[in-house]
Structures are given as C-alpha cells and as structure tokens.
C-alpha cells in the first residue's frame, strides 16, 4: 500500500522525535529526574506540613488530658476555672475551649457550641471558626467525654499552618512544572546533539552503501565516543577497501597473467591437433608442453589465492611459537645448495635463538622467496648474505644480494602483484614472490623495506629487510 509506505518513509516530526534514541534516553533521564524530585517533595511535605499538624494534635491532646485529669481530681468548678485561666493567658487567641456539664450547659470556654456529633468513634474535628478579630479561620478540635458525663472540647486554630501548607504545595507544584520543562528541554537538546554527532556517520554509511567506498566519516577534535566510533568505522572501511582491492587484484591477475599461459597451452594443443603430425614424439612433446603450461597456470593461481588468503588474515589460525634461528638455518640449508650450484657463496649470521610467534610455513616461504630472488639476481661467484638480529622489540631479517639493485621508483611498486622491474623481465618468475612476502610480513604485524646492499655504482645490489615483532 503506497500510503503506509509513504508514512513510513516520511514520518511526522512528532513520530521522528519519539522514535529518536536520543530523545528516548533523555526522556528516561527526565522520568528518573522527576521521580527523584517527587520523592524529595514527599519527604519535604511529610517533614514540614505533616509535622506541624502532628505537633498541633499532640499539643491539643496533652492539654485536654491535663484538663480532664484536673476535672476528675478537683471537680467541674475547678476545671471551669482552669479553662477560663488558660483562655485568659492565651494572648494570641489561638486556643479554643468549651466545657459542658452533663446536662449540656456551657460552663466555660470561648466556643459557642459543639460541632454536630458524627458517626464513628473519632473524637477529632476540623471546623471553621468565626474569629472576633482575624475573621474566618480553621481549627482542630478534640472532644472528650469526661467520666461524670460532662464534655470537654480543646482546640487550636490552624489557619496559619494551613496557609503555610498551601504555600508549600504551590511551591512544589511550580518546582515540578519547572523540572518537567527542563527535562523535556534537556531531552530535546540531547536528541539534537546526538543527531548532530551521528549524522555524519550515517551520511557516510549511506554514501558507502550507495557504492562510493572512498567516503570516510569526518572526525571532530573532541576525541570522544563518537569520534572513536567514527575512527573504528573508518578503520573498518579501510580494511574493506583493502580487501576489495585484493579481490580486484585477483581478478586482474586472472585476466592479466593467467590468460597468457592458458592461451599458450591452448594454442600448443590446437596446433598439435591440426598439424596432423603422424610422429607420435611430436604429439607427445606438444602434450607435455601443454601440461607444463597448465601446471604453471595452477602455480600462479595458487600463489594468487595464497596471497589473498594471507591478506585476508585467515591464516592467523596456524600461528605458533617458533625459533626463527632454526627456520633461517633450514632456509639457508635448503637454498645454500642452489647458491653453491651457481658457484655463489651464502653467508649467514644470526644469534642462537630468535623466538617469535608466527606461521612457520609462511615464514619459510618468505625467506625462501627472498633467497630465491637473491640467487637469481646475483651473478655466478657472487655473495649473498642472510642475516638477522634483534632490535628492541623486533627481529630484523636482511637478505642482501649483489644484483642490479632496485631503483627508488621500482621500490615503491615492488610488492604489487605481477610487478616486475624491467631488468628482471628476462629472468624466470611470476612477479608474485614479493607480494606474498609483503602480505606475510604484514600478517605477522611486521614491515618490509629495501636498501642498497652497498655494492659498487651500477651494481649496488639489493638488501631486502623485514622485521617481525618478538614474542612477548
């Protein structure tokens, strides 16, 4: 139904306000604030107005009891005298007394008559009094039935206290109104502030969902929770962009570097088929070349997948403590034979133990790739140096050759998939070796860099260095 959808898409301002998380938070705080205020007012009420009333009541009761006792001990006449005496002493005129004899005749007091009797056994009365000088007022009255049948009424005027109570009530009501106002204002301000801080992130997310991966959440200078959220979002986006690049790299790789060997294999097999050569040896040779080409395709494919796997961080599961010294010794032993076969010397130098946490197969692959390159680019009878040392919290590994080196321009591009320096185009290789090295080093939280190996100009040699964090 288009109507409902429309309402959902463009909700009214009230609904938007109510559905805002900021508003709801603020409202929650306002409710808690109001509840606290009410509790405070209640305690205040009980402690002031309530206490005044209770005090009045107990004073009346004490006075009435004292008088009743006097009457019981000394008779009605003395009691009437005492009542008159009290009235005479009451300068403020707040006291109310009435003494009636058993026949209902008024013996003493300033009250004209008793209030009409009520059902129930409560002997407390609240009555309106007509005062001679202050006008109408309110009073509390206690009526006692004395043992001889006479009645004694004792009361106090409470108009003053009533006014105080009214004042207190009014004040509390105003305070509650103000609290409600400020709570709502606070809720609105908070909602606005939250919205203002969250809108950039939401806008960025919407743009990214729309396909523009280059967007990042703008950060304020507060370095608060929102900035931290934005920063994590940005880090996440960087990672996603990196992975996307990786995927793009793999597809580029497949398009670019696998096409050639696949085409070669295909052409070779097709040619063998079409040549109608009766010579089985020729046919066999063509098939073998085809298989070799396909194996090469598989190897490149594996390498690309492996780089992607490493870059995605999926291999961290295989991390275990290991001694890099032993691993370097294995690599040196493995590739030393190749160097020796080319008349090269492989010099090695590292401390007895270099403990770290990592994936031993991948790390061996790294050293193997570097040594393989070094052997390839160093002239026969040259020297290759494999060394490692500790530097603060890092283990640094260096592989130096006597090859043509790498120009500053090429150094920035090396490690891109399939990049091969012009000077290396004639040597065999896929151009994937250093990509894998870089990916593995990054997986281990390390870094890779290049230096001149210190050879003569024109043949400076290349030193590839990488560092890995030492095991804690």
């Amino acid at each position, binding site marked *: 139904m288009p109507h409902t959808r429309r309402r959902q898409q463009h909700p009214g301002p009230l609904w938007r306000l109510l559905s805002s998380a900021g508003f709801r938070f603020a409202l929650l705080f306002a409710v808690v604030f109001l509840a606290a205020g009410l509790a405070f007012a209640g305690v205040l009420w009980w402690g002031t107005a309530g206490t005044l009333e209770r005090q009045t009541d107990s004073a009346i009761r004490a006075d009435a009891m004292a008088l009743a006792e006097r009457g019981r001990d000394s008779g009605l006449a003395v009691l009437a005298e005492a009542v008159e005496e009290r009235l005479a002493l009451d300068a403020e005129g707040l006291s109310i007394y009435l003494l009636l004899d058993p026949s209902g005749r008024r013996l003493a007091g300033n009250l004209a008559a008793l209030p009409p009797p009520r059902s129930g056994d409560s002997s407390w009365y609240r009555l309106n009094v007509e005062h001679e000088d202050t006008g109408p007022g309110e009073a509390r009255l206690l009526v006692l039935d004395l043992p001889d049948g006479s009645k004694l009424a004792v009361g106090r005027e409470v108009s003053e206290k009533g006014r105080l109570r009214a004042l207190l009530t009014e004040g509390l009501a105003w305070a509650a109104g103000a609290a409600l106002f400020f709570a709502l204002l606070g809720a609105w301000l908070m909602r606005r502030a939250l919205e203002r801080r969250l809108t950039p992130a939401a806008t960025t997310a919407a743009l990214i969902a729309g396909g523009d991966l280059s967007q990042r959440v703008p950060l304020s200078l507060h370095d608060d929770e929102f900035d931290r959220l934005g920063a994590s979002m940005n880090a996440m986006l960087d990672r996603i962009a990196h992975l996307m690049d990786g995927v793009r790299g793999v597809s580029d790789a497949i398009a670019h570097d696998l096409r050639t060997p696949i085409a070669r294999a295909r052409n070779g097999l097709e040619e063998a088929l079409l040549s109608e050569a009766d010579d089985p040896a020729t046919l066999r040779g063509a098939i073998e070349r085809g298989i070799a080409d396909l194996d090469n395709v598989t190897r490149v494919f594996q390498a690309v997948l492996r780089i992607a796997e490493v870059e995605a961080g999926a291999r961290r599961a295989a991390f275990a403590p290991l001694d890099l010294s032993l691993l370097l010794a294995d690599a040196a032993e*493995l590739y030393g034979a190749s160097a020796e076969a080319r008349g090269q010397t492989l010099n090695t130098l590292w401390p007895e133990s270099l403990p770290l946490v990592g994936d031993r197969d991948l790390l061996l692959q790294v050293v193997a790739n570097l040594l393989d390159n070094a052997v390839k680019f160093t002239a026969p009878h040259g020297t290759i140096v494999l060394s490692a040392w500790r530097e603060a919290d890092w283990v640094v590994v260096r592989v130096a050759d006597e090859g043509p080196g790498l120009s500053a321009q090429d150094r920035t591009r090396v490690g891109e998939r399939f990049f091969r320096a012009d000077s290396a185009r004639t040597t065999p290789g896929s151009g994937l070796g250093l990509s894998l090295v870089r990916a593995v080093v990054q997986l281990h939280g390390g870094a890779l860099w290049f230096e001149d190996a210190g050879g003569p100009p024109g043949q400076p040699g290349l030193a590839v260095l990488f560092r890995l964090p030492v095991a804690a």
Partner: protein
Amino acid sequence: MRILLVEDDAEVGRFVKKGLQEAGHTVEHTTNGRDGLFMAAGESFDLLVLDRMLPGGVDGVRLVETLRGQGNHTPVLFLSAMSGVDERVKGLKAGGDDYLVKPFAFAELLARVEALGRRPAVDAPATRLKVADLELDLLSRTVTRAGKKIDIQPREFRLLEHLMRHVGQVVTRTMLLEKVWDYHFDPQTNVIDVHVSRLRQKLDKGQDRPLIHTVRNAGYMIRAEP
C-alpha cells in the same frame, strides 16, 4: 593393493581409477560418502582415496572420523579442491594420512598412494637399511657404499634414509620437502633437485652404477637394479 576411491566427480574418478589400475592396483569406485563409508567399514582395503567434499550427507572428514571411531586404521589419502592450510590441517586431524590438492599430477598421486599403502606395518625397528651395496646405519648415522664410508651431512642422511625406506617407489619433490624438510611451501625453483643431485654425486662418485634414479615428470627412486 586394494584401493577404495570415493570421488563424486565422474571424470576425475574415472581418470584416477584407470591410472591406479594401470599401476597394478584393484580399485573400487563409489561416488557418494554414505556408500563409501558402508564399503570402507564392511570390506577390507589397503588404502582409501577420498574426496573431501562428497554428496550423500557424509563428507570425507566425517567418513574418516567415523572409521577411526570404529577402530579402522586403513590409511587415508584426501583429494581436495580446498587448498587452505586450515583445510589441510582439518583433514589430517580427522585421521587422514595425506592430503593432495586438486589439480594434481597423477604421478604425484600414485607416488603418495604407494608410499601410504606400502608403509611398513610398524615403523620397523630396523637399524640398518640396505640397497645394493649401499648401507645406511641408523644408529651410528653412517653411510657406506661398497664398504667405503661416505661423508654425508645430517640433512642428506635424512634424505637418503627417506629414499631408502621407500626403495623401489617413486618419491616426489613435494613429498621430500614435506617429509625430509618438514615444510609445506612452494619452493619456486628446483631446490630439491639440487640437493638430490648433490647426494647422488657423493654416492656415485667412483661407482659405475647409479642408485638414485630420476623418474621423468614424477620424482626420484632409489633401486638396486639399473
């Protein structure tokens, strides 16, 4: 050997079956895990070749786990299109003995099948290995040929030991890398060849009969007869 092949891809299955039969083995082939488990549990095989992903609700890993749970210790070789290291570890942990990633060269598969199937029942407590006039003493770690001591490095000793334990069988380069160097990685170049040829030079120096033979498109084999 009597081999059970559980592979759901008809073409790969046919290819492997034919190859193994040509190498002189008896092969039973089934295409789903449930039947595979039924056959493996009910009959006696020397070796199981399993695809990791199988239809029928029982995949390769489940199949091996079930078999091992029943006390069946027939060697298992996994064939898999899943090349991740985790996948490999999962396969071996479940009780697989070897793991080969597709696509593979048939020679590699055959070499691994024979190495697994003809594994000595218990790692024989042999102290000496002998091929023709070549002798390897596992206790003193010395190698002699025709009574003459050959100076050999520790790694070369392990390489030779591995070859001699599989006398008459093809051992591929990857197998050597895994078993002798104990690493799983792509060495890019012919490093293993260099090591083997160095060992070969030491063994054959002054001898007219070579012992380590290169098997074209496959690997190496040590054998007495030329």
